[in-house]
């Protein structure tokens, strides 16, 4: 179960995620992000504070968003990852693709 909400802060769209991002919810997240990018949001900050699980399918979504925003000269930042999620990004090599910050405030 994944809950997604967002708010504009400091010129960025802060997307707050809560729950687990598994294969099923990854599709929901992908659709949401592409819609926001389609609406002209090219500076995204993801708040992971309330996320307890991320699967390989979800990693693909973040890769897709990063590539899309790269072509639009936008940016994507990930913040407030717990130790295990940070491990997943490090192990997969994805942490090199994103700016990762300890808090949302740091990312803005």
């Amino acid at each position, binding site marked *: 179960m994944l809950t997604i909400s967002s708010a504009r802060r400091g010129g960025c769209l802060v997307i707050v995620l809560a729950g*687990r991002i*598994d*294969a099923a919810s990854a599709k929901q997240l992908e659709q949401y992000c592409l819609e926001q990018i389609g609406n002209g949001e090219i500076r995204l900050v993801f708040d992971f504070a309330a996320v*307890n*699980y991320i*699967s*390989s*399918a979800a*990693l*693909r979504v973040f*890769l*897709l968003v990063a*590539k899309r925003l790269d072509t639009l000269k936008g940016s994507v930042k990930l913040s407030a990852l*717990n*130790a*295990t999620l940070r*491990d*997943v990004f490090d*192990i*997969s*090599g994805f942490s090199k*693709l994103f700016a990762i910050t300890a808090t949302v405030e740091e990312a803005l």
Partner: protein
Amino acid sequence: MRKPENILYGTGDKPPLQILLVLALQQMSFLGVYLVISPLFARELGLDPAQSLQLVSATLLASGLGVLLQTAKIFGIGSGYFCPLQATSSTFAGLILVKTHSGLSAVFGMVGVVGLAQMAFAWLFQRLRGVLTVQVAGLAVLLIGLGLGYYGIKLVLEADAGLELQQQGLLCALTLGTMIVFNVWSSGFLRLFSAFLGLLAGFIGSYALGAIPDGDWAIFHDAPLFYLPRPMNIGWSLDHHAILPAIITGLFLALHGFGALVAAQRFNDADWKRPDLQLVKQGILAEGLTNVCNSFLNGLPLTSSGGAVSLAASTGCTSRYLAYWLAALMAGIAFMPKAIVFWQILPLPVMGSALIFLASFTALSGLQVIASRLLDNRKTLALGIGLILGVSYEPVLRPFHQASAEALKTLLFSGVSLGVFVAVVLSALFQIRNHTREQRTFDAQHSSLDEVIVFLEQQGRIWGARPEIVRRAEHATWQAFEILTEHGLLDRQDGDSDKIRLQTIFNEYTFTVILGYSGKVLPLMTHPPSHEEMLNDEGAVLQMAGYLLHRLADQVRARHDGERCELRLIFND
């Protein structure tokens, strides 16, 4: 082994000579507190001044030998850590019992048997890793800290040198305040000497306040400048009545040593996870051998000093070179009665303040060790009852001493040994019906991550696994569930639901999760797919999942027997 940030000079580091000398003097200043114990015991035994001097001098000489054996780590004896030895009044009950039954010379024969018993228990401890767990080690360290603090408070408040309460409070504030100021607000070298500076400030304050009685100064003046201790000067004999009290005393000295040695390991390694029982064995062997030698020198039984270990850690130097200099200093002072007497005149509130300072570091370190593991009801009760009995040592002691048989009185050796003994016995008792593998079957299509988390956290608590290991196990297990269900690797059974059998095993060193199911073997990858593959190839997500599993767990094994498959995820704890 990674050196903690607060340690300036670790076990293998060699500080400059002048720093080593002052640090050795600082350690000697602290351990000198325990020199008071020898004359106290001499008084209880009714020794004449010459015998009393022999006892104190021999005990100090043996302490020097013990420090050397403990640190040098030769022929499989010694832990290699800075872990000095000290005498303790806790052994008095057993020693006096033997003196009453068998005479004074049998007391020193008993010290030798205590040493041999310690060496025997050292071998046994190494084989008891199932009950001498991380939590029991944490309890031992916590109890050492609480015991030191309690003794410190007693010394501050129960001073009998005619001091007024305000004077006692002033000396305590001066000594403790100086230690705190230099330890908290100074850096580098001054922090190294914070305990010594505190003791120095306390001594100067005592002199200024006239807190050192004239009688004490007279003892200092009358003491000879040089004394040569001679082996078996007081006497040596072996009596069979001494064997049982000696074995019990040896057990509790070994348990006390276990606590101090674990504290030394903990203080020296930022990544410390569990006691190294091989080094604990070697450390207790060194203590035992020291007491065998000590027996012939006519000294008091010795055990590792948790306080000295804490002092080294709190001031930032645990170097083995410090141990060599301390050993030399102890051996030197053993021949100088005037120097020995110096510690007898230092006012008790000053000594007590030093103990309170050291106790804070030790007690909190023990708490950290205990809290580093998940605790189930069995562990909570074993540790909780051990802790309560350990801190209630004195009230427990009174009725027990009045009612029990003479030989059993040595059972209540010290708060540390009593608490650890009870925790070990209860841990062993709670092993009953606690060794079966836990297993639960999940419906792959309808189970949620929360159900898996609840099961694994429950297992983690039962086994006392570290929380971060359980988190990783949860993440990897759910990733495996997802691969199996999302990528069609499970066979349909009876046309309705798929079942995954989840089993956990914990053996103190590893937390293992085994997934059993019918279907195809889960593909494990040693390399991740490229970013391009992730974007363009649907199969790459499965490859990435296999790679994540391979990396999240410390070991992964997948195998099959016909349609029955097994995925084994092993996490080092």
